[in-house]
């Protein structure tokens, strides 16, 4: 038994170090390509990156801001990774995030008299249920074999912000001074605000994200449900024949995934903004998708990549301010990274397989 353990740990380490090397290479390629894009747009890429990194890692405020940015990325990435184990492609993180925020907002402005110790759990549930139900719709359609979840979640990504917009401009619109120019809901009661740590803006969402990540890893690697889920991802036909209820798993997994993304939305509005605004997400859902793909759905990879992308992302805001690059240029970076990952299926697939097979050995 001890020999097996030693062998396993040894190969784990080897697997991880190779994986890390590959992530680094992908990122390097992507950052160089983006630098080229910046350069062609007439910006100074070196200065751009230098500014970004010195801010992110050099100052404690910068670092805390990176953590703040990391929270929704972590959550939305897990929201993509879990279904990916079943072979489902969930692009709907953005929409699920909005619906989580939407339902949480409803809770925040309806149950105004709750004490914080009750309010926070209620809001967490609201956020989870909002995003979860939104994703479960897509899951149901897929389980019935009617529409591919990639297409449904993608389309629903466009509908959710419209629902939020409708509510913000309509029934929840704030009549406060200064709100006419910038439609938003009324401010949430203080009890509805997620607690923050150490005087920074880093909030409870970080705990939620880390818990979600840990749970993801544990369920997949150790439990019977994880084994069944991976079987569905590996060969749905065989899984079906072995008596695994595909439809049920698809819907439940999408619900959970959507719920986690919903938590991201809930966290953003209750912790950072304190109210709901239309279009409050700069594409966290899509970035989560990217992170999950980049890291092959591996929990450790997600942790690392969320951190790195949070740095890049805070760089994006910075670039907008200092260099006048439109924010959607970040889309180009995302596309380049996705492209690099997709264009090398051999090594990113190998990363995925190694990660999964190694875990298989650990049984």
């Amino acid at each position, binding site marked *: 038994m001890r020999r097996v353990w030693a062998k396993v740990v040894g190969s784990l380490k080897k697997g991880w170090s190779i994986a890390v090397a590959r992530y680094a290479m992908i990122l390097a390629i992507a950052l160089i390509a983006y630098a080229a894009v910046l350069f062609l747009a007439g910006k100074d890429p070196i200065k751009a990156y230098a500014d970004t990194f010195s801010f992110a890692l050099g100052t404690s405020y910068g670092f805390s801001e990176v953590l703040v940015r990391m929270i929704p990325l972590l959550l939305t990435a897990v929201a993509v990774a879990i279904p990916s184990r079943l072979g489902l492609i969930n692009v709907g993180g953005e929409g699920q995030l909005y619906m989580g925020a939407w339902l949480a907002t409803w809770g925040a402005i309806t149950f105004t008299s709750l004490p914080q110790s009750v309010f926070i759990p209620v809001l967490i549930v609201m956020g989870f249920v909002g995003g979860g139900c939104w994703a479960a719709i897509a899951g149901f*359609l897929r389980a019935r074999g009617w529409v591919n979840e990639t*297409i449904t979640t993608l389309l629903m990504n466009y509908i959710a912000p419209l629902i939020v917009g409708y509510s913000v401009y309509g029934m929840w619109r704030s009549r406060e001074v200064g709100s006419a120019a910038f439609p938003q809901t009324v401010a949430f009661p203080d009890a509805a605000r997620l607690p923050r740590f150490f005087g920074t803006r880093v909030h409870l969402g970080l705990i939620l994200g880390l818990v979600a990540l840990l749970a993801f890893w544990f369920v997949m690697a150790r439990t019977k449900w994880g084994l069944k889920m991976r079987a569905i991802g590996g060969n749905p036909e065989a899984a079906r024949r072995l008596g695994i209820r595909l439809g049920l798993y698809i819907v439940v997994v999408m619900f959970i995934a959507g719920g986690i993304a919903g938590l991201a939305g809930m966290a953003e509005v209750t912790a950072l903004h304190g109210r709901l605004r239309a279009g409050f997400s700069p594409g966290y859902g899509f970035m989560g998708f990217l992170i999950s793909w980049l890291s092959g759905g591996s929990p450790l990879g997600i942790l690392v990549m969320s951190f790195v992308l949070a740095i890049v992302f805070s760089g994006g805001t910075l670039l907008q301010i200092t260099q006048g690059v439109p924010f*959607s240029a970040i889309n180009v*970076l995302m*596309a380049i990274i996705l*492209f690099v990952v997709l264009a090398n299926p051999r090594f990113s697939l190998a990363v995925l397989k190694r990660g999964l097979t190694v875990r298989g050995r650990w049984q």
Partner: protein
Amino acid sequence: MNWDLLLGVLSGTIMYGVPLLYTTLGEVIGQRAGMVNLGLEGILLVGAAVGFVTSSLTGNPWLGLGVAAVAGSVFNLAYGFLVITRNANQLASGLTVMFLGMGLSAMIGRGFVGGGSSGLARYQIPGVSLFSWATKSMFSYDLVVYLAFPVAVLVWWLLFRTRWGLSIRAVGESPSAAFAAGRRISLLKYQATMLCGLFAGLAGAHLSVALARTWSEGMTGGRGFIAVALVIFSKWHPLRAIVGAMLFGGAVTLQLQLQAHGAAISPFVLNMIPYVLTLGVLLAWGGARRFAAPGGLGRVYSGEE
């Protein structure tokens, strides 16, 4: 009955339906070759941006359209490379192109947001001017619109009456059978990819140069996804695509007209219509659809790919 509204919708249907038709035709070719491209939205945006910028800079809207078509064709090669040469997941590759298009178009069009253009010359359908209720702008379209219908017939002929079309369809139905018959799968797929990009680039440019006569970020508003749905709706047939495109063009026009006539529906709800409609179309074809699709595609749509 509000005749003004009805006629406005009829007239607008063709106007708004045509860019959709071109895009759909391009995607029909692509899907017949076995590729689902979710990145159409990105290509449309690139076409719109490139077309607008070129015609603004050169003062020649036709040049803008031409350059945009070429740009779309080249741009779609990114999708083609991933799917054909690297054998990557089609849906994810489409998303890559979508993001790329969204970002690139924003950067290209940055200095031109809100600018205006003179658009293309319009010609009214002969005979309409005889009617008293016809204003000068009603049923008055540019050449690109008029060409849309012959082009649809051309695409049909290309797919069903030529050797090339037979090969393309064979590739989409069963790459192994096509390979066994000696067809060069990759080459054919690349050709289809470039054609698809050409149509989409043209459609996007038409939108910015001739229809809206301006550029703004994300102005295509989901038309790329609607086109994917339209391909299914028209059962992968170019002539039936005309019906589908007109239907959706009508929906868009109706939405605009309702807004213009002060209908008390929230603009948010109206903006949802294209997406909800698209979902509806996809649902209506349900699980049975996958057996009507070209052989290689059914699995992509129902999720087994």
